[in-house]
């Protein structure tokens, strides 16, 4: 017998034992499989489940059709259309949701109210959430109601009502966008923020001492470039605007007295102050002609400003209280120290100095102590801007070609520098959005100098200005 030659008799018991052991193991293995999970009970609508989000990293797709005009006059219809379009743009700007293109909505019957929304048709086109709003004319202005529906259940995840003037319907869309971002993603959107910049679009010429010099005035605009307004009218150079943290004042450099001085315009109150009027001067109103004060930047709490001045002979960084008192010099070096920016905590100031021979970044305490050089591996650095929290980064313009600059970002956490622009014209003067997710900058990529915004990942570049030359943006809080 052949098999017997493999297993002679004395081993039979051992084989039997082994077999029994394997059988026992196999049984054990089968027992260790988890018991069948009971199917979870359908979730009750809670505060948490009001957030519309897809699992597995798939994008959450929103559709924002035109709002419903409950009163049928042409004005209300136009407002309803505008709010829908602007809200789509606002939500799309943060790229937190995927917005379904509006031109695909045409085949879906428009709702007449909140109750007859064809959810199945919106589901068919791939939407996870749908924003429906109504606009109604009231005695004083308009009333806007909005709801965010979860398509899968047809339930409302967000609802709000606003009323007020119908003069600028974009404000309603911006407010709705910010509130939806806050409620759905705990994100501070930028839809209600504004940009300030200087522009020569009016083409006025300065009279007097400096001939043929273009004038520049400070302008403000919504974050998307709409509602551009001029806020200085003095036919001189008005440059380097900076928003106060409360968004109610703009500090800027103005040549209205001949020598550059720093002014603060309280744009809502309509008043103006001169910050650097305390410098020694020949008459009570203006500083010495040789005194130049440039590039104000607000501390994060809005109580102080840093700026550059040559009042002591060469460009140095100074810090003053908001009312111009208590001016303190915080750098002392024969080389030029310019272009200050506050750290998010307000305890440090970064600036540019050419003390090593080429313009490089330095950081010093707001009290002038603890100077260190921040090496970012660039040969020429200009206009550093410290990011708002939660990020801890400094954006700056770095000379990358003989003629041009590019926007780069230094990250303190990783010590790495990455570029946001890659030689499309020259790109200068970066300014962070208050939530740190975008930057504004000025660029020649479209011919003349224009203001652009870009996402912190370098994508989503948008042109904000189109008229004249526009420089040195600042982003309101």
């Amino acid at each position, binding site marked *: 017998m052949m098999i017997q030659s493999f297993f002679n008799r004395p081993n039979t018991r051992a084989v039997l034992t082994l077999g029994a052991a394997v059988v026992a193991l196999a049984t054990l293995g089968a027992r260790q499989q988890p018991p069948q999970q009971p199917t979870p009970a359908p979730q009750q609508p809670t505060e948490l489940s009001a957030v519309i989000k897809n699992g597995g*990293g798939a994008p959450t797709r929103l559709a924002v059709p035109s709002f419903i005009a409950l009163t049928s006059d042409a004005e209300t219809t136009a407002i309803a259309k505008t709010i829908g379009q602007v809200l789509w743009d606002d939500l799309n700007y943060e790229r937190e949701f995927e917005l379904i293109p509006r031109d695909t909505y045409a085949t879906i019957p428009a709702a007449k109210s909140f109750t007859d929304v064809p959810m199945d048709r919106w589901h068919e086109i791939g939407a996870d959430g749908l924003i429906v709003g109504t606009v109604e004319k009231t005695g004083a202005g308009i009333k806007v109601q909005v709801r965010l529906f979860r398509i899968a259940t047809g339930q409302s995840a967000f609802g709000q009502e606003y009323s007020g003037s119908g003069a600028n319907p974009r404000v309603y869309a911006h407010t709705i966008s910010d509130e939806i971002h806050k409620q759905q993603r705990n994100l501070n959107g930028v839809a209600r923020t504004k940009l300030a910049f200087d522009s020569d679009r009016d083409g006025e010429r300065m009279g007097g001492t400096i001939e043929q010099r273009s004038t520049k005035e400070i302008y403000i605009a919504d974050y998307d470039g709409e509602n551009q307004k001029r806020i200085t009218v003095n036919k001189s150079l008005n440059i380097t605007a900076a928003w106060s943290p409360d968004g109610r004042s703009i500090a800027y450099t103005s040549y209205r007295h001949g020598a550059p001085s720093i002014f603060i315009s309280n744009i809502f109150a309509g008043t103006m102050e001169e910050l650097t009027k305390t410098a020694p001067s020949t008459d009570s109103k203006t500083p010495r002609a040789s005194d130049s004060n440039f590039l104000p930047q607000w501390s994060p709490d809005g109580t102080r400003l840093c700026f550059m001045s040559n009042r002591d002979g060469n460009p140095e960084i100074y810090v003053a209280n908001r009312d111009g008192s208590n001016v303190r010099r915080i750098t002392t070096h024969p080389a030029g120290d310019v272009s200050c920016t506050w750290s998010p905590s307000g305890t440090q100031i970064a600036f540019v100095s050419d003390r090593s021979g080429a313009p490089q970044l330095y950081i010093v305490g707001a009290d002038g102590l603890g100077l260190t050089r921040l090496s970012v591996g660039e040969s020429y650095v200009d206009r550093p801007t410290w990011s708002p929290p939660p990020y801890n980064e400094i954006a700056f313009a770095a000379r990358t070609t003989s003629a041009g600059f590019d926007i780069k970002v230094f990250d303190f956490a990783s010590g790495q520098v990455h570029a946001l622009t890659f030689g499309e014209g020259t790109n200068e003067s970066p300014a962070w959005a208050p939530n740190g997710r975008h930057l504004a900058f000025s660029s020649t990529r479209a011919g003349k100098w224009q203001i652009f915004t870009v996402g912190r990942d370098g994508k989503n570049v948008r042109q904000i200005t189109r008229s004249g030359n526009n420089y040195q943006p600042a982003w309101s809080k």
Partner: protein
Amino acid sequence: MPKVQPIPEAGPGRLGRGHRVSSSLAEINVVPLVDVMLVLLIIFMVTAPMIQRGVDVNIPVSRNSGPIVNERVFVSVPVAYRQNHLVYLDNEQIRVDALQERIRQKMEGRSDKEVYLRGDAGLLYQDLMDVFDRLHAAGVARIGLVNKLPGEK
């Protein structure tokens, strides 16, 4: 081997020359059978886990990954399309108006941009062209026409 037992001697008065009587076995000898069965059992137990499936990998969890790309996308156009203009995207029935946007969403982030079109043989050429146009507008680079071989069911 058969058991061998010494036979007790009949008595002292018998012949001195040993005399053996073999006793017949009253039962089947199952020992070889057990040997064979155990060997087969072990062979099957060892091979069974191997033939069930391949390497077991515990897939990591990630929040920000895209869906698995390069799944095939099938668009089916039944003959009833001529009346109701409904098509099937994979297994979901949708209006042809929504097809372009849905395909655009599916093609986002994919490298191949391929769609397989399963059209009914009874459709009009024009009907298929309408679907083609929508697929092209949605960014599909290649459309595969699914057909059968002659005689295939």
